[in-house]
């Protein structure tokens, strides 16, 4: 017996102690045992309608569903034996009876639980000889979600997500018997700004993404576990990449940041990474030049200007890039250190009102948040300006207050020295997200082969200003330099930040 609200049970011959109220799927997970399930999700209510999570519990005459059975003291449960296998095989046979076998054209193929479980628990052949039931296919649920009723196994994960998490309660089950299907209640179109999460939730290919539709099979993509940079939340994501193109972004579990969800805006906000018109080489007075030449020219301009220069940073830059920019300001004697801080409406679930990933990092590194009027920048000689994302920029009138301009931008524009800007998926680094949490960006690919990140480009400028400076050899080394320079970063390491981030100033945060 175990006290403190814990219970001890035996799973496949191994004892495990779990908090009271834990269900058998989660109890088995603690031992690394996977109990198959379609309709169960830890963040949603339990309905127990898919029946695949059958396990054997001693003392109970029939097989039990693990998702809706609470762990009890002294319980003896078996997740794999002949009886359990037979039960699961039966459930699989029923689920597959009317399944259309669309795998050849189904975007879910490769990450489909029906495929996975059919492989592990399926009979391999169908005994069903009659005509399958036909239901509506390729039904549009608005601009973002496509529904296929034949593939649906009616697990109701989408119904529960929209009701319990998104709060819009838009989908419900309609009709009965073999004609049962899902419908969108209102006018057939989903409206929730979180609707695309039901695509990830769907264990089969019933819900697919309009945006990602037929773009790539899963097995062609490479994946980078990075974060979303649309707002300060920094939802953990996995970005699917093929041939130097971002094809999709899906949320990655992080209990401390975004749970299992992300907003549609962030998910679909990657067009700039695939833009072919982007700047691919640095330019000096409009002519393409090597990085070293552009860096030398930028350094010369900054050295001449000295105090009559201003630096306008971007909150889309990583801490490492901002740190190098700060060192440049120190070396050139630039006092005006600003950054544009885009803000907008947020919501209560995930969307943050700060529309950039790293305003906190910029503030920590001594840059001052300003609005677009930018009154701090009056008549100056040189403006060093890292443009933020599309949608926010310094007005031309503000830029015109500077005689010469050194600009980092995505696209061709007027500037004395122009460096290509890179997107979040093209660099390694860290940002400080909402809740003062340090999170890592992970590089998925680099575009145009020769494109350098802002950190590398700024390091070349700094090297031209200060002969003794050595660029960081690795992203980890660049992070070490930031951590050494900033007190709140004390105790953090690049590997320690890892895939799930770490809170700043850990020692001060109460446990």
């Amino acid at each position, binding site marked *: 017996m175990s006290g403190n609200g814990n219970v001890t049970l035996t799973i496949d011959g191994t004892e495990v102690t779990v908090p009271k109220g834990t269900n058998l799927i989660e109890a088995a997970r603690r031992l690394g045992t996977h109990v198959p399930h379609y309709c169960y999700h830890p963040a949603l209510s339990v309905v127990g309608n898919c029946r695949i999570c059958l396990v054997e519990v001693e003392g109970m005459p029939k097989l039990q569903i693990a998702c809706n059975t609470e762990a009890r003291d002294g319980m003896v449960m078996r997740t794999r034996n002949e009886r359990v296998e037979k039960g699961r095989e039966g459930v699989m046979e029923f689920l597959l009876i009317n399944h*259309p*076998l669309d795998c050849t054209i189904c975007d879910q193929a490769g990450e489909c639980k029906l495929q996975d479980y059919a492989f592990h628990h399926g009979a391999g052949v169908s005994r069903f000889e009659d005509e399958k039931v036909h239901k509506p296919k390729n039904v549009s649920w608005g601009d973002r979600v496509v529904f296929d009723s034949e593939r649906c196994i009616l697990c109701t994960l989408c119904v529960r997500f929209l009701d319990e998490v998104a709060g819009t309660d838009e989908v419900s089950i309609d009709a009965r018997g073999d004609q049962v299907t899902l419908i969108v209640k209102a006018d057939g179109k989903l409206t929730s700004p979180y609707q695309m999460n039901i695509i990830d939730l769907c264990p089969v290919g019933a819900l697919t993404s309009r945006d990602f539709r*037929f773009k790539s*099979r899963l097995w*062609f993509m490479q994946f980078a576990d990075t974060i979303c940079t649309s707002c300060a939340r920094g939802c953990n994501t996995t970005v699917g990449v093929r041939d130097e193109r971002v094809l999709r972004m899906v949320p990655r579990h992080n209990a401390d940041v975004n749970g299992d969800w992300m907003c549609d805006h962030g998910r679909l906000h990657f067009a700039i990474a695939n833009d072919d018109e982007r700047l691919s080489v640095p330019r000096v007075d409009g002519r393409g030049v090597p990085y070293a030449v552009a860096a030398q020219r930028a350094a010369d301009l900054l050295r001449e200007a000295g105090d009559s220069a201003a630096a306008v940073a971007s909150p889309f830059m990583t801490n490492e890039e901002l740190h190098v920019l700060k060192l440049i300001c120190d070396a050139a004697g630039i006092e005006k250190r600003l950054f544009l801080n885009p803000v907008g409406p947020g919501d209560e679930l995930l969307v943050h009102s700060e529309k950039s990933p790293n305003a906190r990092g910029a503030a920590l590194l001594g840059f001052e948040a300003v609005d677009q009027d930018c009154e701090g920048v009056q008549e100056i000689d040189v403006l060093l300006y890292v443009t933020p994302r599309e949608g926010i920029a310094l007005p031309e009138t503000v830029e015109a207050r500077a005689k010469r301009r050194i600009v980092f931008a995505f696209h061709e524009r007027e500037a004395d020295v122009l460096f290509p800007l890179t997107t979040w998926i093209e660099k390694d680094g860290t940002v400080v997200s909402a809740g003062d949490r340090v999170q890592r960006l992970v590089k998925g690919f680099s575009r145009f082969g020769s494109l350098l990140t802002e950190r590398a480009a700024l390091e070349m400028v700094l090297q031209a200003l200060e002969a003794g400076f050595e660029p960081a050899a690795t992203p980890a080394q660049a992070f070490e330099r930031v951590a050494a320079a900033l007190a709140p970063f004390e105790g953090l390491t690049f590997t320690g930040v890892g895939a799930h981030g770490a809170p700043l100033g850990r020692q001060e945060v109460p446990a």
Partner: protein
Amino acid sequence: MGIKVVRRPKLSFTERIYLGPIVKGLRLTIGHFFGTLTDVVLRRKQHERKTATTMQYPEERWDFKDNFRGAPVLVSDQFDRMKCVACQICEFVCPPKAITIWPSEFDESADDVEKGVEKYPERFEIDMLRCIYCGYCEESCPEEAIFLLQEAELVGRTKEEFVFDREKLLAMGGVREDRALKWHNK
């Protein structure tokens, strides 16, 4: 080592006049002449010939065994519908990465069967210079849409000519009956 003296053999009279071997040789030559003449006049195929001669390429070609693996091509079903649904399994399984597919979705103008299929290859290219004729594409195709022909003679002047596009592959492949008609019952 001592020296061994080899004496020339003494030839007999018949051997010295040399006539026998000459007659023997001429008989073979004349035999070949008339044999070939008969083969050509009777238009015999390579394997029916009585005499061994060079194959008269390109008028004559080798007969391949049934399991010969030649150029992979796309086929249509008996309703002239392209069987390929752009599942890209062949692209994935292709060891030399000779196959490239650009999938797309049927639009509103598509017929009912096509709307059921939903997906098709907008572009489908096989680089025949990369292809190693392994037959994995045919083996893995879930729609029986790609087959290897008994075709080993692909001719071109540039590398680009060997990249066969969808139309060329379909024209080469012709029609193969679809027995399941899976998409017709959608």
